[in-house]
Structure formats: C-alpha cells, structure tokens
C-alpha cells in the first residue's frame, strides 16, 4: 500500500515534470532543451541532424499539445484520487475534496517554481461548459424523486429566500465594513459589494455532494441541503447578472429591481421547461433504440447536455434544466433500454462526474497559486465571519417559519448541519473571474479563494465529527419489513380516502393524480411495451427474499416437480431462463446499497423494475415442513395451505440453480450446466432427505441460489 502510494507519487512527479515543461500560451519551442544537441529546431519540431535529408526521428510536440495537456491533467487527477483511496487512514479524517485541493496546491506550486509564472487557471468557460454539467447530471439522474418532491416546499423556501437573505445580508454588511475601513476599501461601491455577496452566498452542489455523501446523514437532511444547492443556482445566476448589469447601467431604478424579481421566476421556470422538454424527447427517443442498443446510452448524455446548452443560450438556469431533464427521462429510459445499456449509462455518469469533480478541485488548488493576489485583513476576515453569521441566522429564521407547515419538523441539530454544511465551491470561483475588471477585483478573487478554502477545509473536515457529536439521526439502513410496507401502504390509501371525504387536496391527491396521468398517458406513449410496474410491496418482498437467500447458510433444496423431472428444456425456455437470470442477477447486485456514492455504482432501491418478477417457489410455510417426506407426497392433508400453493405453482415450472459468484455474462452460461447438475440428485424420489442434505452441504459451500422461474407460456 505504501508502495502504491510512492509509485503514484513518482508518476505524479514525472507528470509534473512534463507539465512544467509545457508553456501555457502554446508557443511551440521547448526552451529548456540544451542547444548543444545539434538539434534542428524549425517550425515547432525538432530533429536530429543527419547527413541525409530524411528525418529518422522527430518529435512534434506542438501538434498534439492541447489534447496531451488535457489528458495529463486528467491523469494527474485520477492518480491522485487513486492514491487517496489507498492511503489508509486519510479518507476517514480528510474529505476527498480537501486532499485534491492540496494536490492542486502542490502541483501549482511546482509549476510556479519551475516556470516563475502563474500556472494555468480554470477558465470560466471550461468550468461552466465542460466541468459542471456532468456533476449536475449525475446528481439529477440519481435524485431520490419522492423525497425531493415531499420536501420541495422547504427546499424552495431555503433556496430562494435563504439565498436572497444571504446575498442582501452579506452585501450590505460588507458595504458597511468598507465604509468603516475607508482608508483601504473606500473605492468599493455598494453595487460591487452586492455583486460579491451574490456570488459568495451561494451554496455549491459539488462541494456539498462530496462532503455529505461521505457522512451518512438521514435522507431528509441530505435532500434539503442538496436540493437547496441545486435550486439556488437560479437565484444566484439572476442576482449575479442583475448586479452586473446594474454596474454597467448609469443608474438603477425601482423598475429595474422589480424586473429583476420577475427575471428570477423566468429563469427558474424557463430552465425547468427546457429540461422537461428535452427529458421527454429523450424518453421518446429511447423507445426506439431496441435495434441499436449500443448507442442508447449516448442519447441520455446528448439530450441532457443539449438541454444545458440550450438553457444557457437562453440565459436560463442551466443547472435546473439538466436536473429536470435527467429526473424526467430516468424512469422511461430505464424501462426502455436493455440492462447493459442501463449499466453503461450509470457507469458513465458516475465516471464522468467523478473525473469532473476531481478536476475541479485540483484546479481550485492550482489556481490558488497566483501572483495577482491582493490581501486585506478586514475584508477577508469580515467576509468569512459574515458568511457564517448570515447563513446561520438565515437558516434559523427560515426553519422557524417552515416548521409550522411541515409534518416532520427540522430539528435544531438538522438546522446546525444545514447551516454548517453550506460549503462554497468552484461556482463562486468561476463567477468571480467573470467580473468586469475594476481596481479591487484582485481583492475579490483572493477573498473568494480564501472563503472556498476555509469552507472546504475547515467546515468539510470538522462536519463529520460534529455530526457524530450531535448524534444526528443517521440514515436508516434497514429495509422496511414486508408487514411495515403493507400496512404503510394501507394507511396511505386510508389517508387518501379520508382526505377525499374531508375534501382536502393534500399532497396525496396530487401525487395520485400525477401517477394516474403518468400511467395512462406518459408511460404508454414513452415506454416500449410497458409491463406493469411492480409496486413497492412486491419490490420489498423480492428484496427480502433475496437477502434471505443470500444469508441463509443451509439452503433448503429446490422443490422437486414431479412432472418436469427429467424433461429436457425447450430452447425457448432456456432462452427465457437465461434472460431472466441475467436480469435478476443485475437486480440482485444492484439493489443492496443506497444512492449517492461517488466511488461505486449504487442503485436507488426505489428504482422501478418492470421486469418479470421472480419469486421463490418454496414459500416459507413449506420450509417448516420440509423434514417430513409425507408432506411432499401429499399424504398429509392438514398442511393444505402450502400444498395448495405448490400445486398451483407446479403447473409449469422449471427448477434451476445458479451460483452467484458469476458475473452478468457468466450466469447465462452456468444456467445450462447447472440445470443438469441439479436434476441428477432429484432422480431418486423415495429418499428425498439424504440427497437434500448432500445438496445442502454442497450448496452451502458454494452458496447457490435457488430460483423457480415462471414459464414463458404462463405470461
């Protein structure tokens, strides 16, 4: 492990060397090659002089410079990430974002030392057009929809009003500070302060995601902070542009402010509509991809990116557009494309967003090493303080209001985490670079960097211990029991019914209405052969069954079906078995862990699986009585219940066992030989007990899963 760390360091060092050699403005000549080599430097390439005119060896760096540098940066980012995860205790204490920024600082320092000029900075265009969309797309695709909509009111409350509160508060107080420190800060006008406030107040989704997902807080808290960071983009963008245009205007009137307010609404809703449009378009396109499955994932990315670019073009909120697009298309795309395409989509999303995030943090570090810093103690310190104070008071006040309307109140501990978890990140950084030049711009840049570093390092590192200190309700990992799920569902229906009687259009009403609309029109239009979605009760049941099968050491052997014993499987049956197995292994592998993990692909457990349901033939009633052979031979009339179940099922069933060690591809292959393996012990029917035991032992050793499949014909 230490060796790997050293290796990655060495690699990074060599990469740094390469980077140091390259110059930022693209001039082709490598300056620091010794001229004594007798090299012939002409039009950007160098070659060794030989008597013959033909160049045997030549190196043309200029030709490939741009892609080469990009790849080197990405390589550096990825190696740093790898090293981080191999480095023992570090991930537990320091969040990834901090380590990456430190690596960036290191690299920046090296480059500065070698070249004595500023290292390449993160250009705002590159950030907004290339680095930000993948992260937001990933967040939007894996957004827990139900939770988000249940808390939408609160999230909007925090996002819009909270941001306004912060912006105005920080802006005005900073102006007060500037007035007080006339000597050094006298030329910072009110509008400048407000502009600065608007870009520094916004909570950054990238930073929030990267810190929060490493500490498992309860889902509600997570969705509140995360949703706020996503939605406040609309407000931030509008306010920023508003103040910027005010700066350019000769004077500001009340009408302009009012128009600004309208602009917020337009920007937000515009982004939403653009996202919806492209999301539905993507869903429709995915319906027709059955004959060219390989490019199906591409459409997801293309449409999302298109929605982002379109809304940026129209000066709407790009973040909202891309989130809406992803959230809209998700259920339809997942139902339409094959499992492999689904996996590809998810994997690529995770990969791109991971790379993007890493790059952003590294560049943040690199860009800190600048020679354009301007330091001013009062300004920087007061900004830091004010950010914290205004956020805390904002959260307190807003929560006091919103708790009166909510069902689950936001507790004081939650409020603390929300306030403390308001991290700033790269969005502020890029926005500050975009300000028109004025004398104190460098001060703003410095302050922004300080605030970002402070929030990411100090707040990011201490939030985990603080959470543990305050015993914030952790995420409940346990799957609800089936009874809970059934009874909860009953109560949901009950409350909906009572609401009907009382005449109150509560949230259930709209939810039901939307679900009906969805089922009747949208799904039929957008999904290719829509199979009925499995209800959550069924999903919980299946999940519980699978977990049990995984955990049970002694597998009860598969039930012998008298009629199908020894019957050779028809080819279409084999095909259907293979297909079902591959689907269900994927379900099995995916359904175990929560969403929002950066490093591995985890599945949201509420994902709709419109696949054919798979269930265990041996209902649990039978497990009680498998010891008695008489039961199987149907002599015991008392235990009629499971018997009835069994005969009902034995109409058209085949028994198959597979071993879970195989991957998706192998399972279909092992299905075949496994068939013959399992039919052999069943040959002897008189003495069922001993082959069962034998099989049990075998099975325990290999951890087989038994599945009983429904025949295709039955469907």
């Amino acid at each position, binding site marked *: 492990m230490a060796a790997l760390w050293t290796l990655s360091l060495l690699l990074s060092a060599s990469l740094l060397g390469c980077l140091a050699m390259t110059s930022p403005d693209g001039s082709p000549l490598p300056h620091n090659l010794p001229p004594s080599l007798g090299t012939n430097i002409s039009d950007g390439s160098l070659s060794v002089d030989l008597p013959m005119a033909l160049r045997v060896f030549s190196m043309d760096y200029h030709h490939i410079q741009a892609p080469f540098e990009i790849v080197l940066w990405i390589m550096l980012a990825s190696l740093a990430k790898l090293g981080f995860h191999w480095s023992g205790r570090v991930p537990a204490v320091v969040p990834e974002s901090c380590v990456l920024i430190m690596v960036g600082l290191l690299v920046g320092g090296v480059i500065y030392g070698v070249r004595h000029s500023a290292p390449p900075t993160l250009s705002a265009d590159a950030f907004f057009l290339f680095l930000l969309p993948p992260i937001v797309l990933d967040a939007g695709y894996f957004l827990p929809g139900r939770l988000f909509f249940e808390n939408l009111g609160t999230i909007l409350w925090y996002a819009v009003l909270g941001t306004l509160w912060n912006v105005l508060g920080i802006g005005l107080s900073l102006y007060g500070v500037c007035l007080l420190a006339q000597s050094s800060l006298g030329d910072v006008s009110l509008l400048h302060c407000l502009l600065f406030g608007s870009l520094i107040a916004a909570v950054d989704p990238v930073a929030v995601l990267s810190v929060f997902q490493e500490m498992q807080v309860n889902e509600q808290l997570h969705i509140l902070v995360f949703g706020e960071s996503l939605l406040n983009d609309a407000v931030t963008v509008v306010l920023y542009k508003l103040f910027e245009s005010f700066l350019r205007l000769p004077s500001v009137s009340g009408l302009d402010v009012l128009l600004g307010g309208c602009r917020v609404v337009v920007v937000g809703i515009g982004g939403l509509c653009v996202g919806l449009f492209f999301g539905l378009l993507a869903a429709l396109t995915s319906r027709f991809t059955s004959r060219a499955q390989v490019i199906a994932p591409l459409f997801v990315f293309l449409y999302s990116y298109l929605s982002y670019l379109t809304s940026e073009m129209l000066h709407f909120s790009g973040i909202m557009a891309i989130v809406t697009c992803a959230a809209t298309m998700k259920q339809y795309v997942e139902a339409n494309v094959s499992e492999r395409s689904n996996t590809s989509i998810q994997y690529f999303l995770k990969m791109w967003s991971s790379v993007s995030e890493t790059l952003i943090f590294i560049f943040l570090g690199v860009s800190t090493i600048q020679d354009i810093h301007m330091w001013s103690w009062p300004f920087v310190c007061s900004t830091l303080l004010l950010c914290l104070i205004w956020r805390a008071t904002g959260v307190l006040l807003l929560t006091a209001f919103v708790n009166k309307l909510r*069902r*689950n*109140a*936001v*507790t*004081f*501990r*939650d409020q603390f985490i929300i306030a403390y978890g308001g991290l700033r990140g790269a969005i502020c950084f890029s926005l500050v670079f975009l300000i028109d030049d004025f004398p104190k711009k460098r001060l703003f840049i410095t302050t922004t960097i300080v605030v970002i570093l402070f929030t990411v390092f100090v707040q990011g590192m201490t939030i985990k211990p603080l959470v543990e200190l305050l015993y914030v309700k952790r995420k409940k990992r346990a799957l*609800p*029991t*089936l*009874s*809970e799920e*059934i*009874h*909860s*569902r*009953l*109560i*949901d*229906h*009950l*409350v*909906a*019914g*009572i*609401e*009907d*009687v*009382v*005449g*109150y259009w*509560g949230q259930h*009403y709209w939810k*039901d209405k939307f679900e009906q609309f969805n089922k009747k029109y949208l799904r039929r239009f957008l999904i290719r052969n829509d199979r*009925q*979605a*499995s*209800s959550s*009760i*069924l999903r919980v*049941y299946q999940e*519980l*069954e699978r977990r049990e099968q995984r955990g049970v050491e002694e597998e009860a052997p598969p039930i012998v079906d008298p009629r199908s014993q020894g019957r050779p499987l028809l080819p279409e049956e084999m095909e259907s078995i293979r297909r079902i197995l591959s689907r269900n292994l994927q379900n099995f592998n995916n359904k175990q862990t929560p969403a929002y993990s950066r490093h591995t692909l985890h599945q949201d457990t509420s994902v709709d699986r419109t696949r054919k*349901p798979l*269930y*265990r033939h041996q*209902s*649990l*009633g039978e497990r009680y009585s498998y010891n008695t052979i008489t039961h199987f031979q149907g002599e015991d009339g008392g235990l009629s*219940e499971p018997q009835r*179940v069994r005969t*009902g*099922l034995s109409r058209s069933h085949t028994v198959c066992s597979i071993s879970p060690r195989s991957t998706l591809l192998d399972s279909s292959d092992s299905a075949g030989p496994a068939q013959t393996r399992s039919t052999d012990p069943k040959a002897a029917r008189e003495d069922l007990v001993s082959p069962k035991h034998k099989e049990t032992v075998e099975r325990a050793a290999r951890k087989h899963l038994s599945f009983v499949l429904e025949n295709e014909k039955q469907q």
Partner: protein
Amino acid sequence: MGSSSSISSAHLLRLYDRFESLDRDNRGCLSPDDFEALGGLAMNPIGGRIMEAFFSSGQDTVDFSSFVRILAHFRPTDRNRNKEGAQQELPSSRTRKLKFAFQLYDMDRDGKISREELLQVLRAMLGLQVTEEQLQSIAERAIQEADLDKDDAISFDEFKKSLEKTDIDTKMSVSFLK
C-alpha cells in the same frame, strides 16, 4: 365527544360544512350513496372498507357526531415538542389510530387479521400486478414476520409491534382546514 378526541371549533365548523355538502338530499345524515358520489373514494382500493368504517354500528346512515368521531382519529396531532425537536407521541392517540387501521383489515371483528383477510386487502391494493401465487407468498411472508404467537393470524398487539418504527401520528393525520 370526549376530551381525548377534542377538536377545535374551527375544525368542527369546517367539518359541518363538509357534512352538509356531502348530504345531498339534506336528511341530516349520510347514506352510502353520498359516499359513493365521491369519485376519489370510489377509485380507492380500500374505498369500500373506509366507507364501512363510517357505518360502524350496523346502521345505514351516518349522523354528524359519528362522522366527526371517525374523523377525529385523523386530527392533526398537537406539536408537543421538547427541545430536541422530537415529537412526543401520546400513547392513546397512537393506539386509537392503529386500532382504526386494524379494523380495516379485520372485517369480521374477531380481533385478529387472518390470512384470508390479509389476502383480501393485498388483492385490493396490488390488483392485477401480481399473480395469485405471489399474493399467497407475500401474505405468507407478512404473517410469518409479524406472527409472534404462531397462531397464523395477526393480533392487534402484533400489528402494533410491526409498526413500532413507523411514525403513525404524522402519517395518519389529515389537515381539516383547507
């Protein structure tokens, strides 16, 4: 109406308005037709059972006091919060709500949810999404999870126990004021 299920006068007024608007033929009491006129309730999988809960004592009309008595089960809970923000659950209100839900299952009022009763509810809720065998397995599993005294039925205490982690008070509360 009892102090434990007291409803504020504003709520009562509102409910009376609603009662009057539901009572189409102005007889001062509701009949099953009035309930069936509610479209949402008709489409609800357990709509019939909810309706029957109102006509509890064998009568075929519901007067206003019974109407309110049933709806009092769903009155929004008082927010009794201590400093940490955890909600104090009044044990009696929770038990009453659970009893109401329990009675939706237990149609024959024998104090237990038998397998057949559970199956009926499941059938109504899951509808055409599952096959009969799957329903059986699900019911089997649910009973097996909850049934602690192994009598193949779920008693009220077992029902309560299986829902101990769920916040019934917030789940089963309806805001009466529009």
